[in-house]
């Protein structure tokens, strides 16, 4: 670096105000520069090498105690979104329930709509239970679609705790929709407003395909909030909202009669069947809607695909995951602490809005149920890809 010195003469005659300025300072000798830079470099190097060891001592998480540890949550999305809020809230509460009360360090690693951060976790996470991945629909859907950018697999991860959500599909009354029957045999198809066919919208698209509803779709909205506004303006006719947004987005306009709630996505029960959503006990599920429209129970590959996506994107949507190789003792400790947290009455009242009324699930059988839900058959994959290609002209790479 010092060899550049002579080339760095000041440009002469740079400005005309030189008279009002102080004289040009003299050059430093090569020795001064080298000495100063070298000593600081050594200082920096020493801190980096030694500091790392001092600040993060090797962990012991298998002794039934996380004291002195820090739980690092890798949130693969930008700060501020729903998943980020969820993860920070759960993390702050959970660390109080883990023996030894470890510290909590949420790390946002946004990029590639959640793929980059999750790839990184799959590649380099430590296996002592202190590094935890936050999973959500944005990272699950590209994995289901088998996008080439995805270098992780939920089959190589272990769930610690999962938490679901639900949602409802509703329509603009003025478009001539007063009930489920108005979804079919229409003169003019209903317009569905979406964000992107390869995101969370996919579950709704599969539901429409299953129901054989008369629907055309427009994608490109910024988020579900703007879609809701577009529906209120009459630009689109059909929308869905998740449970946490139902209160602010749908309840009011449904009461005013401007919108009609058609069906809920439902929830998967322990045996993998679609049941009514506890938050919408009065609203029929997609499966019931099918029965009402077609007079028989739904079955076949479309329904299988719907159930798979329902589990992945709603019932077991959000979760905390650790690498498969993580020691069982550490995972069990984390899981049991989460279970205690979920059972705490005080937490439940506090968490009612953040969790949208769906419990934290961390019982001993949870892992098996999640394993089943996260096993995606090849026929479901190919059906979804085929649907995207034929109907929406999207080729998943």
């Amino acid at each position: 670096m010092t060899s550049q010195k002579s080339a760095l003469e000041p440009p002469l005659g740079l400005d005309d105000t030189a008279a009002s300025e102080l004289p040009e300072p003299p050059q430093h000798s090569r020795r001064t520069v080298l000495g100063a830079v070298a000593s600081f470099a050594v200082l920096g190097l020493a801190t980096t090498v030694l500091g790392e060891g001092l600040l993060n001592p090797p962990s012991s998480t298998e002794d039934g105690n996380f004291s002195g540890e820090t739980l690092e949550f890798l949130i693969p999305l930008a700060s501020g979104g729903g998943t980020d809020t969820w993860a920070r809230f759960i993390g702050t509460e959970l660390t109080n329930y883990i023996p030894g009360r470890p510290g909590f360090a949420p790390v946002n690693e946004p990029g590639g709509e959640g793929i980059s951060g999750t790839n990184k976790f799959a590649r380099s996470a430590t296996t002592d239970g202190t590094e935890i991945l936050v999973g959500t629909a944005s990272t699950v859907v590209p994995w289901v679609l088998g996008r080439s950018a995805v270098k992780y697999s939920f089959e190589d991860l272990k769930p610690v705790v999962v938490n679901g959500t639900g949602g409802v599909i509703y329509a603009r009354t003025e478009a001539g929709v007063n009930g489920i029957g108005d979804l079919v045999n229409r003169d003019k198809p209903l317009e569905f407003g979406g964000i992107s066919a390869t995101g969370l919208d996919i579950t709704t698209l599969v539901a429409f395909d299953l129901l054989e509803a008369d629907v055309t779709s427009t994608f490109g909205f910024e988020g579900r909030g703007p879609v809701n506004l577009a529906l209120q303006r009459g630009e689109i006719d059909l929308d869905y909202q998740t449970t946490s947004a139902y209160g602010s987005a749908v309840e009011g306009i449904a009461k005013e009669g401007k919108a009609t709630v058609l069906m809920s996505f439902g929830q998967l029960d322990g045996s993998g069947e679609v049941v009514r959503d506890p938050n919408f006990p009065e609203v029929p599920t997609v499966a019931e809607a099918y029965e009402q429209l077609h007079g028989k129970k739904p079955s076949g590959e479309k329904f299988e695909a719907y159930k798979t996506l329902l589990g992945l994107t709603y019932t077991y949507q959000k979760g905390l995951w650790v690498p498969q190789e993580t020691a069982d003792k550490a995972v069990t400790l984390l899981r049991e602490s989460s279970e205690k947290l979920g059972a705490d009455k005080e937490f439940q009242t506090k968490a009612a809005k953040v969790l949208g009324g769906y419990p934290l699930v961390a019982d001993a059988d949870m892992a098996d149920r999640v394993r089943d839900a996260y096993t995606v058959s090849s026929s479901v994959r190919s059906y979804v890809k085929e649907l995207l290609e034929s109907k929406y002209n999207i080729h998943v790479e």
Partner: protein
Amino acid sequence: MLDSAMAALASLADPSLLLMLLIGTVAGLVMGLIPGLGGTGAVAILLPITFGMEPPQALALLIGALAVVHTSDTVSAVLLGAPGSASASVTMLDGYAMAKQGKAARALTLAFLSSMAGGIIGAIGLTLAIPLARPLVLSFASPELFMLTVLGVALAAVLSRGNIIKGVSAGLLGLVLGMVGTSPTTAEERFTFGSLFLGDGLSLVAVALGIFGLAEIASRASQRRGQKENITLGGGWGQGIREWLSHWTQVIRGALIGIWAGVLPGVGATAGTWLAYGQAVATAKDKRKFGKGDPRGIVGPESANNSVEAGDLIPTLLFGIPGGVPSAMLLGMLLTYGIQPGPSIITEHLDLMYLIVWSFAIASILGALFCFLSVKQLAKLTKVPFAVLAAGLVAVMLLGSFQEGGQLGDLWVMIILGVFGWLLKSTGFPRAPFLIGFVLAIPLERYYFLTDSLYNGLDWMARPGVLVFLAILVLPILWAFIKFIRARRNTNLDDGHRNERPEDDESPLKNSVWSLTAAGIFAVAFAAALISSASFSPEARLVPQLVSIGGLVFSGILLFTEIRTRVRARTASTGWTLDAGFAMKTFLWMTAFLALTAAFGYLIAVTVFIPAFLLIVARARLKVAIIYTAALYIVLLALPSLLPIDLPQGWLNTLV
């Protein structure tokens, strides 16, 4: 209603609440000062502290910070030409020009007063808008939002008087750059070359800090000497306040535009501030001084950029639709307290709504007051030799820009755009249209497609809102055309010759090899965009193709004029000047710094880069260099544990 408003005010007399508001305000001011952090950084730092607080305390803390971030982000924009946030780059246009004329204190006084007024008007607007918000938001459908984005881009042409072709070219190139990433309609990747990093698009902070901040550093890092003379305060506070009062209509107009931009989801602070600037220029009779230190260019935008935050709270609270990351985090916090945003918030939590309004207003006043009192001290910064400041600025700006995405790639983008920004600046291209094009690219395309697919044919053109926008767009062009014809008849000098005036010392490399290169880069970039967009699906390629064809036309004209001037001039034009050489060397320094970071991590890069730069380039005294580096070293050590700031990790960090 008045009762709850007064009750909310009375509750602010509670010392714990007041303390929270004060802490929030100070945190907001500090975060605003550091280029790249801004509102997101402020809320991210304060959010974890609020867990466990009562809702009023937590709200006072966060609102206090949000209200003043755009007050202090002006400081570095005006004094150093490095905007604290993307939206401050608008204030920079005239503010920095004033500072260079030795009127830094005057510019800051105007800016702070306007920020304060913007905040107060924003708070009043927030109160009044509560009943109006719903019809207002619902009346802006996709066609109106599309027209609004068109207006924003078109302002680029209006505002680059004298060099419209350069302005439009820069705006179009900004649009192309904004389209890098995932297409809003078909979710396919464009111009990413298979890179996951580019798939998210470029970071706004990196683009703004690169194109303005790093470019400025490169062109001024050669200044080793401080100003000997004291900086004139430009007549002191009294005169500042009087001058500011004379622009009161600009203040109000700016604030109203800001609220409006904040209320509409998807417009954002940068575009809102820009619209306020455009409005100020478009309505001014004498436009010549804009960009050269016109106070009206500071007052309007500065007022808008604070009221945007207040406006943004309206959709956040009433619809649960946040307009930016800071308000999204605020929304998350409300949810953890079981406060459900939505129309019912007015009936259920009216006291909290008023608490927000009062906190916003009080924080605006406090923030402006703190800044106002420190104007003299802040203005002294201009006495420090720029080269000495540059070392720390490079380190701080790269660190700030790293926080948004946590990717080293953003920093490389920043340096590349820094070089490009320097080239634009030196060859007389306006850079603001470039940034505005970048910001509006995706909304423009999104709302075009939504409009196109949700409305039959051209029905949308007949909507009253659209007609208003069309009139705003078309009438000035017609007017300019008429004036042009008249001017032609009189065969006087017309606007076209303006850019050849010698007074323009801002762009020393005009009509040189450099400007030829710049025009060439534009043409090549548009051609490349046109060619590579051929492989996209029809929907995803329409807008990029239109933009690049337009860009090719304009950059073709540019290239033609450049070549013609060179053929005609014959005399040797400016080539590799000392300034240019120095700028390029500074960029090499930055590149070396980043390379060091990638290899050994940020801490080592700083401990090597700072003393080396200070001693070799700035020729600072040895004592200064040692204290400077040591101070930065200690701050960097303490920072990650005090604030949620991550230091970039290098290859070495993965080993140990």
